[in-house]
């Protein structure tokens, strides 16, 4: 498989426009503006069948075609918020090859009639944002951004906007609110951003990796791109593999590659003497899979068919030295922290799930608590404005379901290990003093 996104990725100074252009960069933009109409670009994107690489997997070309035609302000937001635990692919793309992203954004803007583009990058990626700032300035200097680009009559501005630390701002509508200068609360859909998005105008939101593919799709043609991967999961995918593996890192694979080949082949498998207990196929929001599913092809539909999801393409591996209870608690704590608080099932459900899992961890639970956890997770799913609550409920309930014996053993062992509490400690633990004060 020929690398597309990671081709030449370690070339020194690839992040500078001179090196990028020497490698053929911005050639596609020139050709597109000179020879193709916006609709022809949209056709290629649709022919490629490329699906969103941020987690939702929605066909990009189709989404771009949803924007209404006509003379009005239209927006492109590149979602560079990359906060899904286990995901670190966009970081590498922006750090090493920012112009690949910028060129893709300009072409996509041309296709959808967009005149104002933004990159919403998470605030924690300070160095990557600095690199992007420099690259955007270079692109403006060369006339690839701004008014009347290359004399084509097409104009688009690009602003790099930094976030300030909030996982929920990776959710597309919360991202829009945050970009408008507000707290990052998601919006009700419909209306969808394509019709009413940023500043209530037509907005296209795409992930960094999705947009980075655009110049490659234009170069080879959508139909050729669609030959890579599988029929419904076309193209290459950057997979971030981490956790209990010998060679954690980003790997560019052809979609449909065997999951085992990725985890045990590319990433070297678990450390010597250990075996895989469970793995998240698509970031911490995905239901965990077991060794039984390792031979499944890594693509959108196979992962969905196994009851999980490809998501952001972040594989986290848990080996047999790790307590699944620890993982469940850490997962739940993350979502509880990041819940924006707008919807009751998520705000309350994540908090209560953490409390119950903490009780399981500490030896204060009974097996009934596991049933309550599953029930709470059930009542979160599908009942909120966004899927953050689901993103906790799905993995946690999958761990409780698939590893129930381990949870029950832990409950027994932890209870037995508790020494009888004296009244003062018990009062402390149950916050009785605080209750008495009220």
């Amino acid at each position, binding site marked *: 498989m020929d690398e597309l996104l990671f081709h030449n990725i370690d070339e020194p100074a690839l992040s500078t426009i001179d090196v990028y252009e020497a490698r053929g960069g911005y050639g596609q933009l020139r050709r597109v503006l000179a020879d193709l109409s916006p609709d022809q670009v949209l056709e290629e994107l649709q022919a490629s069948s490329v699906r969103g690489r941020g987690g939702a997997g929605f066909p990009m070309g189709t989404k771009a075609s949803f924007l209404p035609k006509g003379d009005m302000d239209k927006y492109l937001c590149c979602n560079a918020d990359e906060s899904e635990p286990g*995901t670190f692919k966009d970081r590498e793309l922006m750090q090493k090859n920012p112009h690949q992203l910028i060129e893709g954004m300009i072409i996509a803007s041309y296709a959808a009639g967009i005149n104002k583009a933004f990159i919403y990058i998470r605030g924690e990626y*300070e160095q990557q944002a600095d690199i992007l700032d420099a690259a955007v300035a270079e692109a403006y200097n060369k006339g690839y951004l701004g008014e009347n680009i290359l004399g084509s009559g097409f104009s688009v501005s690009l602003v790099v906007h930094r976030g300030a630390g909030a996982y929920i701002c990776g959710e597309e509508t919360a991202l829009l609110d945050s970009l408008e200068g507000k707290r990052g609360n998601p919006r009700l859909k419909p209306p969808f951003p394509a019709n009413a998005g940023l500043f209530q105008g037509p907005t296209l939101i795409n992930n960094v990796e999705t947009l980075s593919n655009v110049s490659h799709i234009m170069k080879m043609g959508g139909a050729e791109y669609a030959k890579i991967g599988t029929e419904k999961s076309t193209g290459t995918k950057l997979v971030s593999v981490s956790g209990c593996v*010998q*060679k954690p890192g*980003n790997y560019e694979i052809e979609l449909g590659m065997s999951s085992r080949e990725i985890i045990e082949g590319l990433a070297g498998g678990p450390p010597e003497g250990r075996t895989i207990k469970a793995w998240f196929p698509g970031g911490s929001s995905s239901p965990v899979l077991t060794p039984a599913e390792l031979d499944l092809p890594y693509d959108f539909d196979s992962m969905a068919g196994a009851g999980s999801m490809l998501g952001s393409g972040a594989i*986290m591996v848990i080996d047999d030295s790790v307590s699944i209870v620890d993982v469940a608690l850490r997962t739940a704590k993350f979502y509880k922290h990041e819940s924006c608080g707008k919807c009751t099932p998520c705000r309350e459900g994540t908090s209560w799930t953490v409390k119950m899992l903490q009780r399981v961890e500490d030896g204060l639970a009974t097996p009934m608590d596991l049933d309550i956890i599953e029930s709470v997770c059930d009542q979160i799913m599908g009942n909120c404005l966004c899927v953050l609550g689901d993103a906790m409920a799905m993995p946690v309930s999958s761990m409780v379901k698939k590893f129930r014996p381990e949870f029950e053993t832990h409950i027994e062992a932890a209870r037995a290990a508790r020494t009888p509490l004296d009244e003062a400690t018990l009062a402390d633990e149950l916050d009785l003093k605080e209750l008495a004060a009220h």
Partner: protein
Amino acid sequence: MTTQPAKRFEDAIPQLADVDVPAELQTWIEQRMAMYPDKKSAIIPCLMAAQKLHGWLSPEAVDQVAAVMKLTPARLVSVASFYDMFELKPSGDRTIYMCTNISCMLRGADAVMAELEKEVGVKNGGVSDDGIFLRSFECLGACDIAPMASVDGEFVGPLTVEDAKQLVADIRAGGEVLPSKQLSKRPVSATLWQNGGKVGDYDISEHVGGK
């Protein structure tokens, strides 16, 4: 904040005549506001600029941004309070964000965090007497070097308990922090692992094989 409750909305906005705003900050904010169709989009970047200048998002810092942007301090604080990177309490000159999310936890982050607490001399979320702010953080997008930390935006890892000691010592010495563990110096994984984990100054080789 303004000390008297405002009787009218306009009075709640600090006036440039009353607030001493450093010229550089004012220029920065004005230029930033001009980049967006709506000036309110600039709130987060402008608050971050003020925080960098003042060391934390103090009432004084908020008032300065409010005066230039012509927005109320209450609106600015309501936005700032949502985001993890804003320090609404006095912070340090140097900041350590130690990731304790799943992949880092799987590779020993909890032990590294405990060591950092010991070396810095504070509990999670505290500021040491010599100005080091230490807190645990959610996934920073660097699981390839787990367990890792962000020191003022520089990602370092994978960290052992010994590295934690060296990290704090490097901060106190005022120079580069763990240069052989900086992510910014690392090639992509495929290249790195082909070379046994060692490329140039970057060395991850002792971590081949898990924690």
